[in-house]
């Protein structure tokens, strides 16, 4: 579907915040789902980018980092361009309004972006833990603050917030607070550790996985991960899976 680019901001070095007009998709979008975007340039395949927010039920916002040829071409689009997008795709996060205790959203790097939509849907119940490389790479913290109960920041080099990994923050929180559930999105090593800690604490955890994709709709079976001993399609069966079942090296 062709969607007009109606908002474009540069949030930080190599990080772009796009808003596209797409009433149909916006209506159906659920938190944790993604868009599959034809970027042009040297990129032949589409690129999966998570939904970061839905605005006014008509616009979808997504935030991305320029990594290679695809995201580089995407960043070059001008306002008013029409992007060829498939979506919303995949199974998103499952909300559990019945949760009584704290609900933790744990993001790292580009995994931070999809958690905003989730935090919003939680209507102030979310406790958000975000990990970044350094102070310069901290983004969207204010936005998270306005929609969450609590935001904890960690940076690898200690230049902002907690000095260390977001998983250390997680351990601290767990040691002193009752928690109902964990949601996580970020680099695989981080999510693996989060899921391990969740397991040790017998907490349910939902993890949003990344894998190289082809079709994005479940047909080509190239984007598999191993979950509960089975090869699952990240694009269609996920990207969100039960973190307890994910085999991180499969």
């Amino acid at each position: 579907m062709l969607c007009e680019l109606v908002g474009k901001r540069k949030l930080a070095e190599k990080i772009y915040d796009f808003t596209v007009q797409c009433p149909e998709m916006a209506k159906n979008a659920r938190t944790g789902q993604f868009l599959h975007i034809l970027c042009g340039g040297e990129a032949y395949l589409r690129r999966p980018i998570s939904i970061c927010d839905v605005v006014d039920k008509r616009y979808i916002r997504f935030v991305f980092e320029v990594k290679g040829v695809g995201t580089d071409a995407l960043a070059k689009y001008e306002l008013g361009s029409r992007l060829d997008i498939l979506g919303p795709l995949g199974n998103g996060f499952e909300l559990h309004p019945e949760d009584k205790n704290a609900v933790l959203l744990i993001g790292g790097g580009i995994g931070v972006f999809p958690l905003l939509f989730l935090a919003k849907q939680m209507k102030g119940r979310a406790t958000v833990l975000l990990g970044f490389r350094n102070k310069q790479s901290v983004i969207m913290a204010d936005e998270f603050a306005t929609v969450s109960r609590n935001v904890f920041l960690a940076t690898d080099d200690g230049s902002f917030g907690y000095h260390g990994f977001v998983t250390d923050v997680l351990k601290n929180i767990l040691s002193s607070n009752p928690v109902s559930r964990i949601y996580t999105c970020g680099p695989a090593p981080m999510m693996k550790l989060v899921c391990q800690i969740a397991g040790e604490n017998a907490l349910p955890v939902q993890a949003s996985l990344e894998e190289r994709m082809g079709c994005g709709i479940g047909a080509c079976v190239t984007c598999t991960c191993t979950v509960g001993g089975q090869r699952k399609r990240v694009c269609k069966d996920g990207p969100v899976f039960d973190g307890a079942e994910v085999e991180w090296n499969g």
Partner: protein
Amino acid sequence: MAEMRVNIAGVEWKNPVTTGSGTFGFGREYSDFFDLSELGAICLKALSVKPRQGNPSPRIAETPKGILNSVGLQNPGAEAFLSTELPWLRQFDTKLIANLAGSTIEDYVQVAEMLGDSVDMFELNISCPNVKEGGMAFGTDAKMIENVTSQVKQVSKVPLIVKLSPNVTDIAEMARAAEAGGADAVSLINTLFGMRIDVKTRRPVLRNNMGGLSGPAVKPVAVRMVYQVRQAVKIPIIGMGGITTGEDAVEFMLAGANAVAVGTAGIVDPYAWIRVRNGIEQYLNENNIADVNEIVGAVQMND
């Protein structure tokens, strides 16, 4: 309106467009995008006797105007297909082609027997570069091709297409071997064997190291092979390899293909199959060609 029907080894397709096996799953996903009855035939994902998990991920890598894949024939097995997928597929007014996978000749024979006449045609996949046994090893040796073809042919209740590997010195020889073994048609090309290395990690991008190259990049090789096979055998040819537009499809048909398959282009654009079908029709109409069969093999070689 031009006549779009083609007859492939006795099976009538309403138009010459099918799907590249493995790129279309069992059709469920694409049925959200268009009516599957619009296709001449659906070539299904490879089926083996038992379920297969395929290879670990990453299983796909992007290359200039192409992709490498190393899926490795992941599939639910012939039995699950018959019980779960086939009844659903039968609602569509199109022909069904089962792609047969195996590691030994016995495997191929067994899966053909299991499927019986539940589908309209078989495609013998002896050209997959992504499995250790069987697969490409069968498809690069003329004697093996003839042998496996004739044994599967003996048990086939439906017309048998043999899918050829492009990773050979002489594609015409392979096609002749398939014909000699009793193939009712040949399809080509399967993927070219390739590799991509990530210079940052210094590792192959595909977890399985190597994979099969498909998409527009391979088109010139595929067109050349279709032409060479057309000169070598009398049986129908299903041409594929990078087809993205109606004009690409026409190019393959001019070279000698009686029908075409679209694979990778559909991975990028879910409407590719319909665009190709419409594009062929448009070409025929614009050039006042009454019947699509008129363009088959109609290339005029320069002297």
